[in-house]
């Protein structure tokens, strides 16, 4: 059937994450963006929500079952709070989720437990490369099998929290296909480069990382002989990113809506004018439509159906929607929207990023 009601467990989770986002993320997001630094306490409190362990099987130390749909529900709430801090909090997921999805039993046993503890895990992933025409399915970083090892060479960028990471999941091209390799940070040849400065999400620490003749045992190939399916990973990433886009857009929409009801011009609130009211109505329509597309893709993923197309449509739709909505929010606020005193300019900058991040975030 077509049903749009969350389970009571999902509702509780969403409420909890919403409260966290409101109390913690909204309290520090501007300061974090300006100082390019996220307070430790916010990260720790976020980690204590237990979202990642909640997606990991009890066999490996977690207390849940992975659901792309449940993730999409809480990701919307987190991104509503702040995208930069959310991406910081999701950094361990970039390692843990692919391991849980594609890892063999040995890899899951070895690596997943560290994602179920009390402290924020120091793990990340390196996928994106510093090229204009980036395609996760055709990477320039290479992994070549040499005897019992793989040798990895290439340049990566947008690697979140690379400096504090103890272990990387490095995506590389092996015989024309994208595969993933587990690389401890202290492996010779791993060089952390400069911090990446982006247009938005500046609170998130991201680095360039170079891999020069980095050699790892073949047991570190994720999924063993089977390897990974990059399209499945991209599907999951598109669901994740589209869910985050919905949350960010909702933040901008709500802010613009409230502003338009309070801001008086020509003797009445600007929301009394159709030119403003219609913008807000269209924002609402597009946010709701995108949310439903995300839910559908996530539902299909969880149900074991082919979710690739739904996820692609949702992501493509979300990329456009989030720009329109965040831009519209700046426009509704007029000159004030352009000033950093209000959050909408930041949300527009953050919204621009989604289209470039295919594959870079999975949660």
């Amino acid at each position, binding site marked *: *059937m*077509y*049903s*749009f*009601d*969350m*389970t009571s467990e*999902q509702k509780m989770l969403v409420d909890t994450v919403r409260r966290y986002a409101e109390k913690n993320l909204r309290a520090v997001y501007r300061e974090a963006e300006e100082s390019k630094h996220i307070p430790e306490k916010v990260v720790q409190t976020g980690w204590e929500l237990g979202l990642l362990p909640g997606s990991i099987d009890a066999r490996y130390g977690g207390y849940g079952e992975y659901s792309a*749909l449940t993730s999409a529900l809480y990701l919307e709430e987190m991104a509503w709070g702040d995208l930069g801090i959310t991406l910081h909090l999701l950094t361990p997921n970039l390692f843990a989720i692919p391991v849980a999805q594609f890892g063999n039993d040995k890899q899951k046993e070895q690596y997943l437990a560290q994602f179920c503890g009390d402290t924020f895990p120091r793990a990340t992933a390196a996928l994106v490369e510093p090229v204009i*025409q*980036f*395609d*996760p*399915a055709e990477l320039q970083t290479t992994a070549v099998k040499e005897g019992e090892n793989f040798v990895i060479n290439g340049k990566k960028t947008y690697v979140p929290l690379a400096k504090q990471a103890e272990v990387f999941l490095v995506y590389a091209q092996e015989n024309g296909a994208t595969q993933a390799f587990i690389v401890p940070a202290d492996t010779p040849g791993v060089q952390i480069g400069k911090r990446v400065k982006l247009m938005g999400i500046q609170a998130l620490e991201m680095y360039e990382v170079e891999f020069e003749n980095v050699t790892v045992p073949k047991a570190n190939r994720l999924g063993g002989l089977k390897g990974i399916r990059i*399209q499945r990973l*991209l599907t999951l990433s598109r669901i994740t990113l589209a869910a985050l886009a919905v949350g960010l857009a909702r933040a901008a929409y709500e802010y613009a*809506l409230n502003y*338009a*009801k309070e801001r008086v011009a020509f003797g009445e609130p600007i*929301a*009394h004018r*159709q030119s403003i*009211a*219609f913008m*807000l*109505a*269209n924002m*609402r*329509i*597009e946010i*709701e*439509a*995108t949310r*439903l*597309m995300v*839910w*559908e893709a996530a*539902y*299909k993923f969880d*149900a074991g159906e082919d979710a*690739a*197309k*739904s996820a*692609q*449509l*949702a992501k*493509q*739709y979300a990329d456009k929607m989030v720009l329109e909505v965040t831009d519209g929010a700046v426009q509704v606020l007029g000159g004030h929207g352009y000033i950093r005193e209000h959050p909408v300019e930041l949300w527009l900058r953050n919204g621009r990023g989604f*289209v470039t991040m*295919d594959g870079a975030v999975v949660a």
Partner: protein
Amino acid sequence: MAIEFKTPEVIEKQLRNVQIVAEHAMRPDSRRLDDNEHERPWRYINMMLPQMQEMERANIAAAKARAAKKKAAAETVKSNGHHGGLAVLEAPPTEEVVSEERASIANMTLVHMIEMLSWGDAGIYLCIPGGALGGAAIQAVGTPEQIERFLTRYTEGPPKWGAMAMTEPQAGSDTGNIQTTATFDPATNEWIINGQKIFCTNGKLALEESDGMVVVWATVDKKAGRAGMKPFVVEAGTPGVIIAKVEEKLGIRASDTATIIFDNARIPADNILGDPEVQTGVGAKGFKGAMKTFDSTRPIVAASAIGIGRAAFEFTRDTLAKEGVKMEYGKPRWKLSAVQADLLEMEAQLRAAWLLTLKATALLDARQENKLESSMAKAKAGRAVTMITQKAVELLGPLGYSTEFLVEKWMRDAKINDIYEGTGQINTLIVAREILGYTRNELK
């Protein structure tokens, strides 16, 4: 309950049958009926008739049961000193009704069928025999006696049509401004209807070409404004009812769009639907009742739009594929050609509109408020499908614009969905009022 996106098997099964109708009784006649504007789609009508009569039987039985319950509830409400009549429509349903309606997939089934029929041909689809909007109004607010008297005809015999007459030359979106009057004549115990209605879908089929009926909105008291507006049932053969004109249109040419003149048309006293009393001070319940029916018809119009959009999208995709331009999923955007990117955008727009429609419909089936959702779905679907069909004509080049293909016709057909049952602008206005919490005075 949990979030779910799955078409129930029982709907899938019916859809397969409807698709056969679409492919065999609609598509082959699409071009001819577009060229010959007022010809009737008999192949389709005859094919649908037995099924529609059976459906009407089920609808009437359910409506009668509901009406009987409402009547009992109304008596309770009245004895408490409140207004009866249509007011009880807005009274919370009893526990029993709620549980009974919860399991309903009636509207979900309907939007799926209409999407598929409109995929076949949106103009032909509208000629479906049955009570249509007029029947729906009677089912919603009629007494058991009225349901029996007006709707039994749709369950038997030759095909008959019903219609709703609201729009007037000077009152389109501002339905509160209608001028048609209904005056009660105590001498004969009749209502006398005077006025002119335009854009009445199936009006001629209902009043001239079959033994049908039309639900006509008229005012019993102009001073009372919206509170004075009431629905009346006018049957075929009523003296003083004239089909003055049948419109020639941009699209949906197979559909009958009539102008009806009521010149001292006399109808029995009990042809009024709902309470004849003009209720002032407590809000215009009768009018609100009419507006409320839009919450259930807007998802239907959205579904019809989406059916046309899907026809145009699928045809464009498949035609281009034969030319070597294949859809590709999973690739980064920069690796797609402009045409592939357009196709993807069309498909995404279609899905966005369809999911909004399904949500509005699910709420309707669950008897939950869906004013916001139904207007969002309608506004989105009208706009999206206008874009999709225009894009289809563009992508297919000179042949897209030619009558060789049906896409040019689908573009013309699609546009009506952005207009009737509330224009895109009216629906956007409703969405805006809902999200801002504004009245019609605060946001005009």
